[in-house]
C-alpha cells in the first residue's frame, strides 16, 4: 500500500472516528474511578471516622458511590462520542477538586484528643496528619485530572466528529 501523506492521515483519523470508539477518554475515566477508590480507602486510614462520625461521612460515602456510577456511565457515553457525557466528566473533575476542601482539609485542620500510653496522658493530634493529607490530595487531584482530561478530549473529538458527519451529510445532499 502507498505511504500516506500527513494531510491524508488527518483525514483518515477523522474518518476513523466514525467506526472506532473513543477509548482514550473512556480509559482515562476508568483511571479516575480507580484513583477515587484509592482516595476513599486511604481517607479512613486516618482518624476521620471516629472524629467526624456524622452526616458528613454519610454524604461522603453516598457521593463516592454516585461519582463511581456517573463516571462509569460517562465512560460508556464518551466511547460513542456523545458530547453531553464529556461535559459530565468535566463536572465530575471539578467536583473532585472541590472535595479536597471539604472532608480532607477539615480533617487536616481539626485536632483530636488521644491518650498516649507512653506518656500516660491525653495529647492533642491532627485528625489527618500531613503525610496522610498529602496522599489523599494526590489521589483526588489525579482523579480530577483524569476526569478533566477525558472530558476535554471527549468534547473536542465529539464536536469534530459531529462537524465531519454534518459535512458528509451536506455532500450527500
Amino acid at each position, binding site marked *: *500500500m502507498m505511504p*500516506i501523506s500527513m494531510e*491524508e492521515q488527518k483525514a*483518515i*483519523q477523522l*474518518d*476513523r472516528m466514525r*467506526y*472506532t470508539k473513543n477509548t482514550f477518554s473512556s480509559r482515562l475515566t476508568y483511571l479516575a474511578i480507580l484513583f477515587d477508590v484509592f482516595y476513599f480507602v486511604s481517607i479512613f486510614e486516618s482518624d476521620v471516622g471516629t472524629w467526624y462520625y456524622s452526616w458528613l461521612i454519610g454524604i461522603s460515602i453516598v457521593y463516592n458511590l454516585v461519582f463511581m456510577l456517573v463516571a462509569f456511565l460517562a465512560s460508556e457515553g464518551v466511547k460513542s462520542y456523545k458530547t453531553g457525557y464529556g461535559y459530565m466528566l468535566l463536572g465530575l473533575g471539578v467536583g473532585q477538586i472541590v472535595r479536597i476542601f471539604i472532608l480532607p482539609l477539615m480533617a487536616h485542620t481539626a485536632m483530636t484528643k488521644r491518650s498516649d500510653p507512653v506518656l500516660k496522658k491525653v495529647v492533642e493530634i491532627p485528625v489527618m496528619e500531613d503525610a496522610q493529607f498529602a496522599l489523599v490530595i494526590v489521589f483526588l487531584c489525579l482523579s480530577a485530572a483524569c476526569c478533566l482530561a477525558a472530558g476535554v478530549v471527549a468534547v473536542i473529538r465529539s464536536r469534530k466528529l459531529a462537524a465531519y458527519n454534518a459535512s458528509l451529510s451536506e455532500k450527500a445532499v
Partner: protein
Amino acid sequence: MANISLQHLDKIYDNKVQAVFDFNLEVKDGEFIVLVGPSGCGKSTTLRMIAGLEDISAGTLLLDGKDITSAPAKDRDMAMVFQNYALYGHMTVYENMAFSLTLRKEDPNVIHKKVLAAAEILDLTDQLNKKPKQLSGGQRQRVAMGRAIVRNPKVFLFDEPLSNLDAKLRGATRREILLLHKRMNATMLYVTHDQTEALTLADRIVCMSMGHVQQVGTPLELYDTPANLFVASFIGLPPMNFFNVRVEEKQLVSTYFKQPLTEDESKLLQPYQGKEIVLGVRPEDIVTGGEVDVQVFSNENLGMNTLVHGRLCGANTQDAQITCKLRGWCDYKAGDCVNVAFVKKHFFDKETTNAIR
C-alpha cells in the same frame, strides 16, 4: 503469486483412522479449486491440513515452491473462512475486520483504508458500525470474507461457507464469491458438499470419496466424462440413472430393454462383448419417443422441465428405477406408460467401476 503443490498427503489420526489417502494436487496461481464430496470424505480435513490447523501425517505441502508442511498456521499467509463465520459478537463489523491487522500492530490509518476497501468490495460500508447479531446470515458471511480480504493473503480457504444460509441467500452469496475471485484473482480453495456450488464456482473440481481423490477436472469434464461410477452418481442433479446391461453384438441388452450401439460405441465396448457393464444415462439425456418403456410413478413439474419418476415397464426391482428430465410441461399420471430414448450414454466397468473410454 500463490502456487500450491500437495504431494502424497496423508492424514492419519491418533486412533489410526486414516481420513485422507495419497492426496496429490497442483493448484495454479489465481485458480479456484473446489473440493467436493459427501460428508466424511476428507475434504475439510485436507483444507485444514493446508491451513495448518491439522498436522500432515505424510507428504509434502509447497507454497510457491517453499515447503510449509510443518509451518504453523500463522506463518502460511492463508486466510480461512469458516461455515459458522467465527465473528466476535462484542465487536462491530469494522472491529471484526480490523482485528487481525490490529494484532499485527499495523498502522491504524492503513488498517482503516484496508477495511474500507474490503467493505466497499463486499457492500458492507453501511454495516460497519453494527454488531454481528444485527446482521443477516449472508452479511455475516460477507464480514467473515472481509476479515480474510483485509489480510491480503496469498490463498483463501473456504470451509463450506454457505451451508448456514437459506437457498436464496446461498445463491446470492455464491455469486458474490465468484465476483470476488474475479476481482481479486486470488488463489482460492473451497470445500463444499453441494455440487451446484462446485459446478458454478470452480475452475477445477476435486471430487473425493472415503479419503480418496476420485477425479480432478473442470466442471464440464466431471459432468460430461465422469471417471467412475461414484463421480457419475455424485455430480448431476437429479443423479444419473444406472442399469446393468450386457454387451451383445451391436446392442446393449437388459432384461427390460434393448439399446442399439453406434459404430463408435461398438468399438469402445468391443473388449466387453458378452460381458455385463453398467449403463449410465443422465435424466436430462432422456427424451420422449423411443424404445424404452417407462411406467410413471410421479410427475414433478418444474416449469421449463418435468421430472418423471418411474420404473422400466415390466420390472419390479429397485435397479430398474428411472428418473427422466423431460422438456416442457408434462401431465403424466401414476401408472401411465411413456416411451423414452437415451440420447447420451455413459459406460462403466462393472468390476472396477471405472468409466469405459
